[in-house]
């Protein structure tokens, strides 16, 4: 079986390798790129622990072939923090205790990150629907939903900050 040259940009960095066509994207991310923040949970496309953002859309990387992602761009959980500062979604998961064991967390973060990119102000229903492909066996989801709400607020505040101009007070 012929191996294929694959080039995938992960978190802005290009990774090239000759891989078997049957290699799953999650294994490319973990074993070729060495980014082990993306987890394999159920390996049957149920749990969402392996969620990454592929060309702007959250997908389950255990159910995508690495060759299908050739020449595409991916963001993994390692790509969320910028300049040593956690992403608002990550901050909110910490603040609201949106995790216990942490196994599902990278997937939860990636789906939440994707949701907040397309919907700045999601309702609770929209948050729960967006996360319906991500399973957590610890938290009961309550704190995860709270964290996503908190992150949405944080992101809006961050963006509105630029819009607020302090007017000089006239004497």
């Amino acid at each position: 079986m012929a191996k294929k040259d694959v080039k995938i940009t992960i978190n802005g960095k290009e990774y090239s390798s000759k891989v078997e066509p049957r290699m799953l994207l999650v294994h490319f991310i973990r074993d070729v790129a060495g980014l082990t923040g993306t987890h394999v949970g159920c390996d049957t496309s149920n749990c969402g622990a392996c969620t990454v953002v592929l060309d702007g859309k959250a997908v389950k990387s255990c159910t995508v072939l690495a060759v299908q992602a050739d020449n595409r761009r991916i963001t993994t959980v390692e790509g969320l923090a910028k300049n040593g500062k956690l992403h608002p979604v990550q901050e909110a998961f910490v603040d609201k205790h949106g995790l216990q064991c942490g196994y599902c967390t990278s997937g939860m973060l990636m789906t939440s990150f994707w949701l907040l990119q397309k919907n700045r102000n999601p309702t609770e229903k929209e948050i729960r629907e967006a996360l319906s492909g991500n399973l957590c066996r610890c938290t009961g989801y309550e704190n995860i939903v709270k964290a996503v709400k908190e992150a949405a607020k944080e992101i809006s505040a961050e963006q509105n900050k630029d819009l607020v101009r302090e007017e000089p007070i006239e004497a």
Partner: protein
Amino acid sequence: MRPTEFDYFAPGTLEEAIGLLKKYNDEAKVLAGGQSLLPLLKSRVTSIPYLVDIGNIDSLTYITRNDRALLVGSTTKISALENYRNFGKNFEILKEATASIADPLIRNMGTVGGNIAHGDPGNDLPAVLMALDGTVTVTGPGGQRNVKARELYLDSYTTSLNGNEIITEVQFPDWGTRSAGTYIKFKKPAGDFSIAAIAIQLKVNKDGICEKFGSAVASVGPTSIFLRKASETMVGSKMTPTVIEKASEAAAGEINPVADRNGTVDQKRDLVRKLFIEGTRKSLRKL
């Protein structure tokens, strides 16, 4: 879990893809989004020596509308169809059905054509396409042909397509004014297949007489099933509770469920009967 070994091709054009399918014939299969096929390959329920990925053929990704139908290129992602802004009232059935498929992450990768071509009786779009009396355009070495959804499925995972044909377009007919429909999926946990699901579209004339009626079900037979008798019972009548009741009995009779952990045969017939009534009433309320 890894699939058994296979060779992989990612043609950039439809012609190349069909050429590859013709060359490898029975040993080749089309890969669209892979959300149904990859789990089967990973669990080694099946193995396929040659995969032809049509995901790079840009000309197969589009949603357009004319006065007769909504036309969807086969590699259009399910999430793209779900988020289509121009559905209008006539296509609420499609909006409800797409939003009910698996989960948002799978809908971001899975394709409209794949959901229809795969032939799993639990897939949702086949029932919608059957209810609407839609068609698929199929392209193969000999050119194009259209196949009615109601004649597409022979058995589980088996369509009337030849091995070297590809579904290139899906046509969801527009039923025009005074039409409405719904998709109701009865399921257990989030993301799971349905225990039973029903697609209903109806059209009435000015006097409230049913002019057209299409209904189909998923998960209660070897394939999705067009409810021919139930649909025919509705046409030409005022949609009174008595008529709906009679048609729902016909619906329960023309499905082919098997007993499993989700219920007995009788329970599933009863479920479809109730879904038929609920779906018809819900559609009528939308008019």
